[in-house]
């Protein structure tokens, strides 16, 4: 059977009937990237406990292909900043982020990581975006596991649509990464 048997159907449709899907390389890369994000274990404070809860059987992060939390940042491409970042911790956060291979994404989880939260004081960095470029902010104190899941889905959506990670966006605009 040749591909030109049915003039009404497009080549893609005919291929699909035979179990072949066609796409672009770019789309496929995005699909692969979004379905296997590897988060770095980077728990800081209370929010980290909810981040751990997201992996438990009730919320089951594994459904989205990201249950492999890596202890080493060099094996991870997603950093979930879960908790307040202190002045002493900020350089460490930056180092860990720099150690991650590209492309990489950052989720800022919770009020503290996003804006300092209730701790408007000398000790806490008022938003982790002063230190690393953030892709998705998840509000809450702490965000429920559902909220974090929603944030992760938003990030996946961003990747699927082919939007660049925040640090590339900043670099393209001429700003510091």
């Amino acid at each position, binding site marked *: 059977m040749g591909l030109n048997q049915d003039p009404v159907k497009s080549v893609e449709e005919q291929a699909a009937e035979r179990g072949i899907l066609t796409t672009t390389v770019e789309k496929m890369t995005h699909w692969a990237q979004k379905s296997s994000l590897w988060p770095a274990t980077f728990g800081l*404070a*209370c929010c980290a406990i909810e981040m751990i809860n997201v992996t438990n059987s*009730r919320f089951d992060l594994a459904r989205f292909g990201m249950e492999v939390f890596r*202890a080493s940042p060099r094996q991870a491409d997603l950093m979930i900043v879960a908790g307040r970042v202190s002045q002493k911790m900020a350089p460490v956060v930056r180092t860990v982020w720099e150690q991650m291979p590209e492309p990489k994404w950052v989720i800022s989880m919770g009020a503290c990581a996003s804006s300092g939260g209730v701790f408007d004081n*000398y*000790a806490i960095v008022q938003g982790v975006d002063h230190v690393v470029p953030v892709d998705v902010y998840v509000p809450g104190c*702490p965000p429920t596991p559902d909220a974090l899941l929603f944030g992760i889905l938003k990030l996946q959506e961003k990747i699927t649509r082919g939007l660049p990670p925040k640090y590339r966006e900043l670099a393209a605009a001429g700003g510091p990464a």
Partner: protein
Amino acid sequence: MAQGVKTDDLFETGLHSSLSRESMVLNLGPQHPATHGVLRVRLTLDGETVLHAEPVIGYLHTGFEKTAETHTYQQANTLTDRMDYLSPLTNNLAYVLAVEKLMGIEVPKRAQYIRVLFSELSRLGSHLVWLGTHVMDLGAMSVLFYCLRERELILDLIEQTAGVRMNPSYFRVGGLAYDLPEGFHENCQRFLDGFPKWMQSYKNLVQGNPLIEDRLKGVGRLSKEDALALSATGPILRASGVPMDLRKSDPYCFYDEFEFDVPVRTGGDSFDRFWVRMEEMEQSVRIMNQALAKIDPVGAYTTTDRKVSLPPREEIYGNMEALIHQFKLVSGGFNVPKGEVYQGVEGPKGEMGFYIVSDGGARPYRWRARTPSFYNLQTMPTMTRGGLVADVIVAIGTIDIVLGDVDK
């Protein structure tokens, strides 16, 4: 190094002389999966043997004490949750009891029983996370998933009552934030009835398991004298043979009306600390069963002292004075008489205490949290001296630290 040859033998035979006896410094953390957050440990090693393990802390220093000085007394309560975030309600309890003591406020008995119930729920939740993560550090993944499964049920009970899963600030100066929701007794009873079965399943996984017992027995020994001298409290002190539990020996919230045992062991090693906590979980359930039976389904949940407690909703809608009063309390807070007070409670990690100095105003002049993990972590160098690097991980696990509590 050849097997069976001790380092010291090598030194004596001179085989080692080309390698100087210099020690190696190894850095662990602050981003390390086994340090339970952002603890950093500077290890001085001779081969695999730990000469000195020095915890370096402050990576989560949050400035609670400074921030609290800018808050009203009732607002500052929300900060306490975020210290030991695994057991927020015992922190609440220490704080509200301190302020109540300074103001001389009487809290209805029913509210105190509810406080007892929720403190024990918190303790249970905290111990479950400890058990799961500690055993995971030892290499067994699955226990954590069982523990988290049951902890979800605890969080559900808290969410039903206080509206959020974590950091609920449910206890307020003068009583509680809200009354118990409908159906709470049944839900809580169902949880309590199920717990012994779950507890048994954890025990099945760890009890008599040679892999776990060998990692714990004789590791991280802390003598009674050292424990006291280093200001350790809670399960660490009790595992070293000091039967001090504030719920028994310095009761608050009518804990003296409850029947329960204080698990004490005398070995002072990781194994003893492990089992003190395991037994504590069973005792907590025992207390909760009694507390639940004592709590009437309806009754007062906060003091009627209008100095600190908000007027009831119905009054606010129909009465101008009540509305003004509510507004004043919420926006300006209440004044606390001049003086100072210290109140400690038995948290899951040890003595959680608050020292509050009031200058007579609506905001605390000095707000000091005596957090148990901070003091307990001091015992780590003593515990790990002469052990192996892997034992440091065990020690961190059995000290049961929460970094929010250490660094505050």
